[in-house]
């Protein structure tokens, strides 16, 4: 078997693992022999089944709640050992014209996506430091790079993650903890249902609409983002730091 470079000893914590990109990341990592812990809001039947199928453990918690993240990480480490890889994938998205966006809901988007990553990194970092190495990948979004109408909260949270990734990349690289991000373009996931609802069309229609703006002439697949995350967690590379891998079929071709 060709070396895939993924850590197969310490725990890999994947948030938002239940569906879409998170599920694809789980399948990609576990197929390579990684020991995965699957986080999502609750230990639903779907999450538990995915864990069984991929020989993983479940680690439910609302990532926007610091106390719950603390307990989840502590229990995980107590039961299964240190966390060597963290994939911050969980996200919450709602869309609305700016003035119509409910203030509490606006902050829920930011608190889940941006503060959630902050909570996770702060809680997991001591474990990585005990290992003397680590890999952190944070899932941003191309909307965090380009902005998008009716998505101020989501775009702001994802743009905040870009700077968070760059800064943590600089801050943690000297101790061998490598932080990078990935900014998916339009990917065929349940989240597209939110966009479709906002536009008042079907999911198939919204995918076709998006594809017209993508040089590759199609939307991406969750497995393609999982492949990018696996690349960023590859232990054979340690000199790639604070970067944002843009996987979008060519829709955005610029540095972030």
């Amino acid at each position, binding site marked *: 078997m*060709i070396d895939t470079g993924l850590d197969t000893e310490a725990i890999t914590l994947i948030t938002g693992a239940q569906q879409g990109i998170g599920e694809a990341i789980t399948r990609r990592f576990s197929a390579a022999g990684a020991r995965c812990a699957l986080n999502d809001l609750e230990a639903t039947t779907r999450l538990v089944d995915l864990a069984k199928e991929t020989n993983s453990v479940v680690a439910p918690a609302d990532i926007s709640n610091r106390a719950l993240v603390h307990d989840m990480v502590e229990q995980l480490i107590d039961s299964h050992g240190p966390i060597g890889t963290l994939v911050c994938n969980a996200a919450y998205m709602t869309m609305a014209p700016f003035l119509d966006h409910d203030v509490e809901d606006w902050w829920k988007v930011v608190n889940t996506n941006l503060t959630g990553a902050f909570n996770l990194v702060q809680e997991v970092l001591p474990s990585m430091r005990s290992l003397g190495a680590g890999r952190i990948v944070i899932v941003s979004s191309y909307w965090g790079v380009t902005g998008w109408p009716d998505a101020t909260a989501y775009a702001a949270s994802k743009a905040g993650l870009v700077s968070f990734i760059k800064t943590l990349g600089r801050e943690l*690289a000297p101790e061998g903890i490598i932080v990078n991000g990935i900014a998916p373009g339009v990917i065929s996931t349940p989240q597209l249902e939110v966009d479709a609802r906002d536009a008042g069309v079907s999911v198939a229609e919204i995918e076709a609409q998006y594809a017209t703006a993508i040089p*590759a*002439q199609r939307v991406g697949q969750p497995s*393609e983002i999982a492949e990018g995350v696996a690349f960023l967690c590859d232990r054979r590379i340690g*000199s*790639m730091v604070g970067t944002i891998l843009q*996987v979008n079929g060519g829709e955005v071709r610029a540095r972030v």
Partner: protein
Amino acid sequence: MSAAARVALVTGAASGIGASIASHLRHEGFLVAGFDLVPSDCDLSLEGDVSDGAVVAAAVAHAQRELGPIAAAINVAGYYEMLAISDITQAQWDRMLTVHLGGLFNLTKAVLPGMVELGTGSLVAITSELAIGGGDHDAHYAAAKGAILGFVRSLAVEVAPTGIRVNAVAPGPCDTPLLSADSPWRDRAYLDTLPAQRLADPNEIAVAVSYLINHDSFMVGETISVNSGAVI
């Protein structure tokens, strides 16, 4: 899709980053044709200058005959020199552009028809961190490497509908023969300013190239920066 028996062509394959990429891809099961001024350790060694379009075209045709259709082409051939802007001669400027940008142009012209015929393919250009951030005494090198970024983004859009993906890798200072023993990029004081505090290893560039030419990628017209955090 398995990488087995796919054919890759690597320019600048005789040493440094090119040699690491060629070796890595062969390990992954690719048949690799190497193109360089001198012989390279590949399945097929081709010699010539990338700045000569006719020579590159003949080499690509030779590789296709010997190994089969080319699924991946990686343009690495290049060289580095530092000069103050007032000291760059016209000949040095022209040579820098014809090797880096011209070499990529020539390689693209030669491999693209075969990839279009296949309906798939991947082209990777090695650019540089200096294309993004610039550097003291790097005007002609950075101009040539920066031109590659514009070329890659545009070509990527043009050929994406045909199933061909074009991307770039921008290494930072890398531990290769391109950096002389007394190069300022090897200076410990400089390296300590980098988040990763070291030169990149050519094998790290090879892993990035391998990721880009993998079929499970939705990356088009992008640049992967493997630069120890020199430019973030």
